[in-house]
Every structure is written in structure tokens, then in C-alpha cells.
């Protein structure tokens, strides 16, 4: 059928005589043959012939099995075992073969209640007296507990004397514990009771709620910072674990304390003490990790029995860079170039290689400290202004600008222009003067 268009374009005679004869009967066949159930276009898509596979008759699809029983719906009365009276309500019920449904009301089973222990006056005298709670109050408490199924928030609301939820809980649970202990045949019987195994601790509960409220009331900014700190803490613990696994260094008490503080502080205490104790640790942690790397690299070099010193240096450099990203590695190389040091020593003697490695390690420490400083700065400014501080600078900064004549003209790290106020590095002269300064002996 499309052939006519092609022939048109080519300028050929459209239909030779033989074809016209074939064409006429075909359209007739088409108009007769189109089956119901699919549209004309779809039918044409399949080529205008019946499908090879038998298609599913649409009427087959939504059929249901013919009902075996006679089902009717009737408006019937019912009783609810959860009710204390004999009140009868009505509802639609599915009646099968003239038999109404049996059994209790289906929702009655949800009417659960709590078993509240009841104490006698004697028991109260002997066990349950408390300086803060009168018998009256305790009785009221228990009444409300039963009425409201231990929903302490509601109970606290209804309690005639104003008491906090924690206080009510504390009183209720301690009374229960005392009663259980007293009534038990032997201590062993009660030992498995959940109240015995995990007694209610009011101070912990108070603390937990306070922490929770602090977390919930955090601003989004605070959230972000907490997430950052958590990530850092995680990184540090991982590094420390790796170092501890590789060799047995004596983890200083400081580092441990820093870590614990970090864990405890995150739920809501102030962020800076934890970050303070952590950050010195970050300076230490990379070196403890790479000590293990160096040891293993040296061991693998020994296994070779013979190697070239340049190869050995390469391996050690790789070990040093294993814990850092590609960006940092590039920065180290850039710094080496700025300092006028060959990336690969031209005369790799043992001393030269050792010095080269030490220099690389020191540059890593330097870059680490720079990052720390930037984080500190952004932290300081955010606390003051409450605005979102600048991100740590991109590695376009160069510590040692390459300058053949002076031994290190140093540019101060770029800062946000918006920031005002005294929150600045103490030794940069003033915000207006951002000239590169030559390093002087007085700087040390």
C-alpha cells in the first residue's frame, strides 16, 4: 500500500494492470472481515488477518464462579460481649442459606484492658507508703490507670494534683514492683516479670524525653551540622578500628574520651565540646592508620627479595595516600611543585627517598590542618549569625605560591566577604588588607 507513494516519488507508473486486479477484492474482504472487539486500526496493525493465537473473549474475564449457596444480606440485631449491659444494636449481616452468622461480635476481641493490681489497706501500710505520695493520691492514680488503661498522658491530664507524667509512672511502677515482690511465692517466680527485669528509672526517662525534645526542636541547620559531626565520628572510629586491628598502639585516654563524648553529645548536647575533643584526634588518626599501611608495604617489599628504590618509594607513597581522596593527592603534588621539589626524586638514594616520604607526610598533615581550620571558621561564624556559613574552600587555594625568588609568598585563605565582627584569625592584619605576606621569622 505504501508502494504507491514511493512510485509517485520515483515517477513510475503507479499500478501495473496485474496489481489492480488484486487490489479490488482485497478491500472488500477487509470490510467484511473485521471482527468485533478490536478497533479497525488495531486490526490493520496486525496485518488485516485474524490472529494466529485465539484471543481471550472479553466476557470471559470478569466472570465469577457461580454461587453455590444462597446469600442474602439482612438487617439483624446483635449483641456485643464487650458491653456490660444487654444493649442490642442492629447491622447488616450476611445470611447464608437462611442461617444467620454465629459467634460473637467480630470486634469484641479488641476490647482489651489492663489488669491493674489492687492493694489492700494493710498492704499499703506495710509496703507502699511514700513521703511524696499520700494514700489518697495513690488510690486516685490507680483508679485513673484502670479507667484509662495506663495511658499516662491522659491520666496526667486528669489527675487532680498536677504531677508530671514521669512522676506518675514512677509511682505506679514502684507500687507494682513492691506488690509483686511481696505477693510472690518466691523471688524466682517474679524474676521474669518485665517490671522486675527492667525497672522504670525516672531520671533516665526524664533525660530521654529532654534529649528527644531537643532533637525534634532542632533547626535544619543544626541537623546538617550534627550529620557532619556524626560522619566525622564514624570516619574516626573506623580509622581507629583499622589502626587497632593492624597493630596494637596505645590509644590515648584523650582519644577515647573524645569518642565517648561524641557519642553522648550527639543526641542533643552542645556540639562544640565534642568537636573540640574530636578534631585533635583527626590529626592523630590518619597517622596511626598509615603506620599500619607502611608496615605492610615494607613487608611486601621484603617479600620481593629485590626491588628498585624508585619502586619502593612509589609503594610507600601509595600507602601514605591510601586513606585520602584523589583531590588531596593532587593537592599534595601541587604543593610539592610549588615548593620546587621533584615529584619523583632525580637521585633516589635512601636518604633522599626517606626525606621525600617524610615531606609528603608533612604536607598531608598540613592539608588536614587547613581543612580543620576552615571547618572551625565556618562553625564560628554560623554560631554568631545563625546563617548558613560558607563551605570549606575548593582546592584552588595554594599554600605556597610558586615564586622563584622568595621562599614562600603565602596567601591567606579566602574568606566570605559577608562576615563581619571579631570572629577572624587573630593574626591577619585587618579585613581590608589581603596582600600576600612573605613568611618571616616573626611568624614562628
Amino acid at each position, binding site marked *: 500500500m505504501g508502494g504507491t507513494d514511493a512510485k509517485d516519488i520515483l515517477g513510475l507508473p503507479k499500478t501495473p494492470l496485474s496489481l489492480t486486479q488484486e487490489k479490488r477484492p482485497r478491500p472488500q474482504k477487509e470490510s467484511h472481515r473485521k471482527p468485533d472487539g478490536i478497533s479497525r486500526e488495531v486490526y490493520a496493525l496486525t496485518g488485516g488477518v485474524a490472529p494466529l493465537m485465539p484471543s481471550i473473549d472479553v466476557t470471559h474475564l470478569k466472570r465469577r464462579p457461580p454461587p453455590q449457596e444462597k446469600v442474602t444480606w439482612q438487617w439483624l440485631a446483635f449483641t456485643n460481649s464487650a458491653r456490660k449491659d444487654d444493649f442490642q444494636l442492629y447491622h447488616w449481616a450476611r445470611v447464608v442459606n437462611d442461617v444467620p452468622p454465629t459467634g460473637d461480635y467480630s470486634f469484641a476481641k479488641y476490647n482489651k484492658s489492663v489488669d491493674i493490681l489492687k492493694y489492700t489497706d494493710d498492704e499499703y501500710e506495710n509496703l507502699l507508703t511514700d513521703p511524696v505520695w499520700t494514700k489518697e493520691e495513690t488510690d486516685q492514680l490507680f483508679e485513673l490507670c484502670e479507667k484509662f488503661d495506663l495511658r499516662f498522658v491522659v491520666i496526667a491530664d486528669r489527675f487532680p494534683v498536677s504531677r508530671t507524667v514521669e512522676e506518675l509512672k514512677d509511682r505506679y511502677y514502684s507500687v507494682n514492683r513492691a506488690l509483686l515482690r511481696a505477693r510472690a511465692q518466691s523471688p524466682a517466680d517474679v524474676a521474669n516479670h518485665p517490671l522486675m527485669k527492667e525497672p522504670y528509672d525516672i531520671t533516665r526517662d526524664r533525660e530521654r524525653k529532654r534529649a528527644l525534645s531537643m532533637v525534634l526542636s532542632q533547626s535544619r541547620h543544626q541537623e546538617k551540622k550534627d550529620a557532619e559531626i556524626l560522619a566525622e565520628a564514624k570516619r574516626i572510629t573506623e580509622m581507629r578500628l583499622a589502626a587497632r586491628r593492624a597493630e596494637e598502639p596505645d590509644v590515648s585516654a584523650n582519644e577515647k574520651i573524645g569518642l565517648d563524648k561524641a557519642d553522648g553529645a550527639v543526641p542533643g548536647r552542645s556540639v562544640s565540646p565534642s568537636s573540640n575533643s574530636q578534631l585533635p584526634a583527626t590529626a592523630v588518626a590518619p597517622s596511626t592508620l598509615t603506620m599500619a599501611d607502611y608496615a605492610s608495604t615494607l613487608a611486601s617489599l621484603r617479600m620481593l627479595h629485590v626491588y628498585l628504590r624508585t619502586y619502593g618509594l612509589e609503594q610507600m607513597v601509595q600507602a601514605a595516600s591510601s586513606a585520602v581522596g584523589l583531590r588531596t593527592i593532587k593537592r599534595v603534588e601541587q604543593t610539592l611543585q610549588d615548593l620546587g621539589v621533584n615529584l619523583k626524586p632525580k637521585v633516589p638514594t635512601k636518604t633522599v627517598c626517606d626525606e621525600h616520604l617524610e615531606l609528603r607526610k608533612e604536607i598531608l598533615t598540613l592539608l588536614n*590542618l587547613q581543612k580543620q581550620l576552615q571547618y572551625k571558621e565556618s*562553625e564560628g561564624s554560623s554560631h554568631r549569625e545563625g546563617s548558613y556559613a560558607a563551605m570549606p574552600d575548593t582546592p584552588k587555594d595554594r599554600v605556597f605560591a610558586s615564586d622563584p625568588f622568595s621562599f614562600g609568598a603565602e596567601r591567606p585563605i579566602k574568606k566570605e566577604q559577608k562576615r563581619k565582627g571579631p570572629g577572624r584569625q587573630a593574626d591577619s592584619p585587618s579585613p581590608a588588607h589581603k596582600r600576600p605576606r612573605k613568611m618571616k621569622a616573626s611568624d614562628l
Partner: protein
Amino acid sequence: MTMTNSSSSKKQAQDQLETSEPTLKSLKTKMTKSDEKKKLKDIEISVPIVYGNVAFWLGKKASEYQSHKWSIYVRGATNEDISVVVKKVVFQLHSSFNNPTRVIEEPPFEVSEAGWGEFEIAITLHFHSDVCDKPLSLYHHLKLYPEDESGPLTMKKPVVVESYDEIVFPDPSESFLARVQNHPALTFPRLPSGYNLPAPMQVEDTGKKKRGDTKDHSLGQWFMSFSEADELLQLAAARQQVQAHIAKLRRQISLLEGQNQTIKTGSDL
């Protein structure tokens, strides 16, 4: 003449072989093996070497396929004889050369050829059996044309590209140590105090062997000299700068920490 344990036991082992007394011989061979296998910790022997090529332009005599005359070599960095350590050197040339695998079993370890192309040459050093079983490979890109492409080619001055490196043996055997002590071609380590090496075995055929050093080499005038002094100086200066900067940053950080603390306690969050 004092004979070392290893040498004497070796000799005895050989005698035993000849007189065929099986029990004693097996004992002696066991002893030699353990002696040779004894290695020391944290002691390394390093052999400073220089490898590279010297290439002369043939000028008027240059043809299409032979424009340069070049030599590829491995030598001791101070031109000392490295055959004390190196048994043979295999140079793998481009496949277009006849017999591209050139095995040099005597110093000077070099191959001289004529050609027109620059290609990578694999240099494999094989060591004596008491030094190391495994060979070590180096790679050098043959350079015929000078860096400065615009300058005129001269027949007088060759193009020289050399690389300095050091072969490190991290755990030398005792026999190796004994054999090479006091040899100028390598740096001998400081032995732990009280450690006595057996006296070196007598070298056979000293008269027959040629001197293996390259001090009087025909190409010697073109050899580069490598001094670690400049590099050490540059490294020391760099380290000093970095250390000063580190101290400065540490001060800045502790300053900021103090500031942040006061701000924190001041404002109520």
C-alpha cells in the same frame, strides 16, 4: 688461609661425593643449605646504578635506516664494577633488530647498535645465585633526538639520557654479605654490634677476568653525574617551610577553639 664454614663444608661435601660416603655427605649438604639460607632482619644492601643511552648522529654517513649510532647500558653509579652482584643483563630490543634479545654476561653490560627509531628497551638484570633468584626489570626509552627539536643535529655531541636508581636487597643472605663486604660498587649496611661475618670466599681466576668497572669507558666523558646533595637541600628547605606552616595553623586553630567556646557559652541555644 682461613676457610669459611660454608666453603669448607661445601668442599667436604664435594669430597664426600667423590669418596661416596652417603651418611656424612647428606649431613654436610644440609649444613650448607642452612648456612646459605640464614638471613638477617632490617639489613639491606643497595647497589646504586645508572642506566640509559648515548646516541650519536651519524651525519654525512647517515642512511635512511641507520641515522644514529647508539649504546644502551647499565653501569654502577660511581662506575664501579657491578658484576659482583649482577651475573648477566638481557637487553630486549625492538623486534626489527636482528636477534633482538641480547644477553650480556660480562661487564660492561651494554649493547651498541645503529638505527633510526626510538623505542622502549626492557633491561633485565640477573643476579648471582647467592644474591637473588629473581631477576629485576628496568625500562628505558631510547632517545636519539635532542629535546630541543629546532636545533641543528651535530655529530660531535651525543644525546645522553640516563636514570639513577638503586637496587635494594632487603634481606641479604650471609654468604652474600660475606662475599661483598668492602666492595666499592655497593653500600654495605651497618651490621649489629658483635656480629661477625665469615671472611669472604676466595675469588677464583682473578687474573683471567677483565676489570669490570666503567671508569675508563670510551663513552665515559658523556656520563652524567648524580649527586644527592642538591636534592637533599631542596627537600630540607621544603620540609622546614611546611613545618613552620603547620605550627602556624595549629596556633590559629587553638585560637579559634577558644573563641568558639566563649561564643557557645554566651548564647543560649
